[in-house]
């Protein structure tokens, strides 16, 4: 071979497949009591297991009734579960970063609402039809008294992914505020995008950028 082959062209991102995040947590609106108990549990892994089990139960139902009407989009169905186990408030303020406190309260609320929609949609897009992912939970790592890192390994479609969750103790229990897939933190990734937007155009620029993403997606999926 006299020229460097195309073989290596695709190695750059080869390890980062986010299909992994497919297996992330969520929950079902239809399993109230054990879930509610787990949500308040003192053990962060119990919370995460409940969240993952609830999401998988929605994304990979045991059987689908033959006469059932076409289900709502997955993002809508998993939203109640994700809202129960994620702290979208904390997740959003972490993604925006140091500028958060300079943003007016109603703009903050608008950003939380938009960003929540974006994150839930991104998350539910990762679920694909097929075999249910297998998940193993490793020992939690203490970051400080109120925060834990919960590493998990996901086996999905013949591949293995490392996905870890950051959770924080909130008044209502442990809540997820970041998801890290193969070393890439979702919150840090959004921070890198929001930070320059905020420097240039303040809260309005962040709001416009998320609105554009949501509109583009809707247009592409009509």
């Amino acid at each position, binding site marked *: 071979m006299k020229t460097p082959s195309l073989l290596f062209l695709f190695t*750059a991102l080869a390890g980062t497949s986010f299909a992994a995040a497919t297996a992330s947590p969520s929950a079902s609106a239809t399993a109230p009591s054990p879930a509610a108990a787990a949500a308040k549990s003192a053990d962060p892994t119990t919370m995460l297991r409940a969240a993952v089990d609830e999401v998988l139960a929605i994304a990979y139902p045991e059987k689908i009734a033959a006469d059932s009407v076409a289900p709502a989009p997955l993002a809508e169905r998993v939203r109640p579960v994700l809202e129960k186990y994620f702290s979208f408030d904390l997740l959003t303020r972490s993604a925006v970063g140091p500028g958060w406190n300079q943003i007016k309260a109603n703009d903050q609320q608008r950003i939380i609402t938009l960003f929540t929609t974006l994150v839930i949609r991104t998350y539910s*897009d990762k679920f694909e039809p097929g075999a249910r992912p297998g998940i193993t939970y490793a020992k939690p790592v203490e970051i400080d008294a109120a925060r834990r890192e919960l590493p998990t390994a996901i086996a999905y479609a013949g591949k293995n992914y490392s996905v870890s969750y950051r959770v924080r103790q909130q008044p209502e229990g442990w809540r997820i505020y970041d998801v890290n897939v193969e070393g890439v933190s979702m919150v840090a990734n959004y921070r890198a995008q929001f930070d320059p937007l905020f420097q240039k155009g303040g809260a309005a620029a962040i709001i416009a950028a998320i609105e554009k993403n949501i509109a583009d997606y809707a247009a592409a999926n009509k």
Partner: protein
Amino acid sequence: MKTFLHHPARWSRHALVAFSALWLVLAATPSPLLAATPTDEPDEFAVKPVSDPLEGLNRAIFKFNDGFYSFVLRPVAHGYERATPPPLRHGLTNFFDNLRFPIRLVGDVLAGRPKRAAQETGKFIVNTTVGFAGLARVSDSVPALKDVPPAGLGTAFAAWGIGPGPFLVLPVIGPNDVRDTVGYAGDVWLIPTNWAAFDHLDGYHWWWRTGIQTLDVVQSSPDFLKTYDDFLKSAVDPYLAVRNGYLQYREAAVKK
């Protein structure tokens, strides 16, 4: 999560200076840096400075690549997915991954990690024999051979203390940094399908090699596009999202 703090042995004077400087800045700044977190704990998602002196050019190539992926690579990936059943695709992905064993072996040896080099060798032997020439990744069911961290010349350079250097977007290949670009350029020659030795085999035809290399690119295209699309769909600034995602991924990979 393994952070820098968990590797005291790797602390260099450089890092200590950087840490001290950060500390001084944090101590001297009347807290807007910390204001985003509920208490006055350090900001775990602080944006790190990125070396991207060629950002203008990088963004232009990024745009070119986006068109290339959409109009050239995507039809290829779709056609391949329509023409092949999933088990065959998985098998081929495993086969070409197994073929890259020399990259991982050399990377681990150069980095001075004999245990990982032995694990990679074990994986290669098991998958090549029991796994039918690498089509099945049977090593995943052997606990000692599961989850061996990625390795190549890039990770070896990192182990020697060489930093990533400026961020680059390469035509067609995509995001990279200077250290890993040099690493990949070397890795290519470690893939057996590129070895000149095969040219001297009886009955060799140039199209054997070209065919197998083309198959490798084609079989890798669906996964590559899936990763790329996922990133782009969720991004509010695709260039920054991919740059940050790549740098985070490589930083985590070389620390493993």
